[in-house]
Structure formats: structure tokens, C-alpha cells
């Protein structure tokens, strides 16, 4: 990893992504062992700073840290001094004073993990910041695609839904294209960013036309709160135009897979029975998430990639 942090996919080199995916292979194997735990990060402490609700990401990070034998400090914003008006900076300083090696940050505002990274001496991992990035989700998506289809190079991937408000979409666009896939964004104009200039993607508004050409269809969660912003006439209309219904699944190629970052709104962006088809790999995504996060934690805290320069003239050992 370029530095001691994982803040976004955009700043990663292809070699970084590939190293993390290779490392994930090893941690998937650890997960299959009778005793699926290694002592690699004994004595290291990881803490969570989650200013937004999350179940799977937080649990997944916690499982990853524990399988690496790291100690975890649980910090839950709703029951903390944040409610008493403590500033982010003071909260971070307090946590750091207790001695943590990595802070996993989720916040509704873009850029918060970057700011935290400037304040602390430990590693910072972005677990989702506003509409900006969610790098570990993109890594587990890449891993899952590679696992099912052998690699991303030359694949055509459609990302469907609320692109504008989605950090998953942004991280995925960078990750998929860096690994050689072609990406088409499919969404109504109101749910696309004002400009996709500079994004290495194509844009389409006709899902039926795109589906027969893709290897992966990646559905985003339709955030119901967007209805209030009058971006869509109704959820039913969204489903009619952009939902992955049974009829649309039949347009897909035989080997094409269906992905979703969760939590799914069954009946909105994905039909209930489609979510349970063999080609839907949603549960694999969650399973691989633990191994990917082990790889990220190990890469930052354990692999010592940033320590080599501090080791002059040791003896042959």
C-alpha cells in the first residue's frame, strides 16, 4: 500500500490491488481451517469509529481483526461522548491516546477518513465516507468476480441504480477499470452524478439493451430516503425501468453473475426470487469480505512493507 492507510481505490496502483487480492487468497484458506485464526496481529489494537449505521461492514471488520488475533476496541457513536458534543478531532485524539494501531472510519461526510489520517500516527481504513469511497467493498467485489469468472480483464460490468449517492459505485468504478474491465453505468439521469467527465465509463439508460452484453450486473441499493428528494416519481416506476426482474435475468448470458453490496431491498432493485438464484453471489460477497478485510489489516499492520527501510544492517537472520 502506498502509505499506512487505505483511504480509497482511486489512489491505489494496480499492483496494490493485485497484492491485496493475492493476500486474500491466503486468508480465504485460513477461513477454511478447523481453527480459522492466526496469531499474525497479536498485540495490535484495532478500533472502529462509525458515525453511520452499519452491520455487515462493522461485523466483517471485527471478524477479520479477531481472526488475525488483533485486539478490538468497540466504539459506538450513539452511546459515546459524541452525544455530549465532543468534536471529531477530540474523539480521535482520545482514541489515539489509548494506543491503537488502526482506526476504521465510517462517516456521512466525504473526506473524514483523510482528515483523521492527518491527525493520527496509526493506520486509517476508510469503511465508507459520504458519497466518496468504500474501498474494502470494492476489493471484495473484485475478489468475488475473480473467484467466479477467473479475472476482470476484458469483462463488461454494468452498475445499476443510484450512482450519484453511492460510494460503492465510485470505488467499484475505479477498481473494476483498473483491473481491465469495461464499466457501463445504468441509471435514470436524476440518479447519475452531474458529470461523469473523467470517469472511465459509459452511461446508458436502457437496462434491457445492456443486460445481454454484460458478464456482471451490479445492483445498488435504492436508498428509499431519495424518494423524499423527488428524484424518482415512484419506487414502482424505478422497479419497472431498472429493477432486475425475472424477465430481465433471462436476458443475461449463461455465465453472468448478479451482485449487490447489501442490504437488499427485495422487490425494488432486485426481485425476491432473483436474489436467490445460483447466479446471485451476494452471500459470497459477504463471505469474501472477511478475508479481504483480513488482507487489508494485515497489509497495513503486519506485512511490514513500510518497515523495510528502517532495518539497516541486521545480521543474516
Amino acid at each position, binding site marked *: 500500500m502506498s502509505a499506512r492507510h487505505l483511504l480509497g481505490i482511486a489512489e491505489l496502483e494496480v499492483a496494490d490491488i493485485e*497484492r491485496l487480492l493475492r493476500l486474500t487468497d491466503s486468508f480465504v484458506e485460513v477461513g477454511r*481451517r478447523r*481453527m*480459522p485464526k*492466526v*496469531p499474525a496481529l497479536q498485540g495490535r489494537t484495532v478500533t472502529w469509529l462509525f458515525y453511520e449505521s452499519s452491520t455487515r461492514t462493522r461485523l466483517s471488520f471485527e471478524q477479520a481483526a479477531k481472526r488475525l488475533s488483533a485486539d478490538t476496541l468497540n466504539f459506538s457513536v450513539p452511546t459515546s461522548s459524541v452525544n455530549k458534543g465532543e468534536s471529531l478531532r477530540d474523539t480521535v485524539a482520545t482514541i489515539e491516546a489509548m494506543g491503537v494501531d488502526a482506526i476504521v472510519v465510517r462517516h456521512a461526510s466525504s473526506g473524514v477518513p483523510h482528515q483523521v489520517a492527518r491527525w493520527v500516527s496509526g493506520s486509517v481504513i476508510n469503511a465508507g465516507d459520504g458519497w466518496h469511497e468504500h474501498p474494502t467493498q470494492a476489493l471484495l467485489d473484485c475478489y468475488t468476480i475473480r473467484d467466479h469468472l477467473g479475472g476482470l480483464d476484458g469483462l463488461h460490468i454494468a452498475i445499476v441504480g443510484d450512482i450519484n449517492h453511492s460510494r460503492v459505485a465510485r470505488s467499484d468504478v475505479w477498481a473494476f477499470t483498473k483491473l481491465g474491465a469495461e464499466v457501463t453505468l445504468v441509471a435514470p439521469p436524476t440518479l447519475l452524478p452531474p458529470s461523469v467527465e473523467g470517469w472511465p465509463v459509459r452511461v446508458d439508460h436502457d437496462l434491457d439493451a445492456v443486460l445481454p452484453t454484460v458478464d456482471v450486473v451490479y445492483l445498488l441499493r435504492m436508498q428509499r430516503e431519495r424518494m423524499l428528494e423527488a428524484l424518482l416519481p415512484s419506487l414502482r416506476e424505478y422497479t419497472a425501468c431498472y429493477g432486475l426482474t425475472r424477465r430481465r435475468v433471462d436476458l443475461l448470458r449463461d455465465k453472468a453473475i448478479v451482485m449487490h453490496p447489501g442490504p437488499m431491498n427485495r422487490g425494488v432493485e432486485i426481485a425476491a426470487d432473483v436474489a436467490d438464484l445460483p447466479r446471485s453471489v451476494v452471500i459470497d460477497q459477504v463471505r469474501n469480505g472477511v478475508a479481504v478485510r483480513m488482507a487489508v489489516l494485515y497489509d497495513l499492520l503486519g506485512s511490514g*512493507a513500510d*518497515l523495510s527501510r528502517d532495518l539497516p544492517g*541486521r*545480521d543474516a537472520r
Partner: protein
Amino acid sequence: MAERERRSTPPFGGVFVARTQVLDADDVRRAIWRMAHEVLERNHGLDDVVLVGLQTGGVTFAEAMAEALAKIDGEAPPLGTLDVAFHRDDIGLRPVLPSAVTEIPVDLTGRVVVLVDDVIFTGRTIRAALDAVHSYGRPRAVQLAVMVDRGHRELPIRPDFVGKNLPTRRDEVVNATLEGVEIGEMSKEHR
């Protein structure tokens, strides 16, 4: 694993320059056959024996030993490979990355596990391997076969089967493959 890993990772990286050949390919083959016989003798056959090669240097020796055992005894024992990176005691002190995915084909509970490596030096790789093995069950016994024992142990670990005892200086590097065993140094040119 030991030697190769030291060669390939900074700050130990560099180019191996051989100075002396100690064993040639025939010597290595004969040593593997002798060790295979010793494994059979010690365990009264191959019942419950599992060979586990340590990544990366031990794997080819484990394969060669399995082949020898199959020729001597008619049947090859189960063969696994183990990468001990996540169990090492120097994580955080130097770059430690796995070089391959571990593959243990059977539950090790009740088995006799014969660890196979190319060179034993400080013993720390073997300590990590002993730790890792227990993630796969509780073996009845663990034995250790190495092509070269070069001394300089830092832990109370001793191999059961040795291809060649080779006194060395600490700063020398031993390269053991099926093609032969050489002593040399790392050149000062770092990659």
C-alpha cells in the same frame, strides 16, 4: 522456506552467488531416498503419515520424498503444502508475505505429520510451522525432515531426518534444490 525467503525480501535481497557446490543432483536424490527409508523405519510403514512441504523451498523436497516413498512402499502418503507466514514471530520487524496458499488435504488429528523443508537454520520457520499445524487438528506426532541442517539454532528444535549436516558461518547462504546444494553469499548489489 528459510533460505529462499531471505534471498527474496529486502533488506536481505540481492543475488545469490554460489561459491562451493556441496552436493550434486545425484547426492541429493540419494539423500532423499535414505530419508524416505528412515521415515518408513521410524513409523513402521506409512499408516497415518502425512508429508507437509514448507513453502517455498520445502515443497519440491516433499514431492520428491513422496515419490520415493511410493516407489519403496507402493503407495504415496497424502502430501500437503504449508506457508507459515502468518505464524512467524518476526511479523512487523521485516516484510512478511505469504508466497503461496496453504493446502492441507486431510484433517491432521491423529496423524503423523512429517514436515519437510530445504534448510534448517535458526529454527524459527519450524516453530511457526508447529504453530500452524495445530490449526488443522491435533497430530499424534510431528517429525521434521530437512535436506540441509546448517546449524545456528535459536530455538530448541532438532530435525528427525537430515540429508546433510553442513557447518556454515551465519553470513553465508545455503541454496538447496533437487539440482544440488551450494554454499555462497548474497552479492552486495541489491535489486
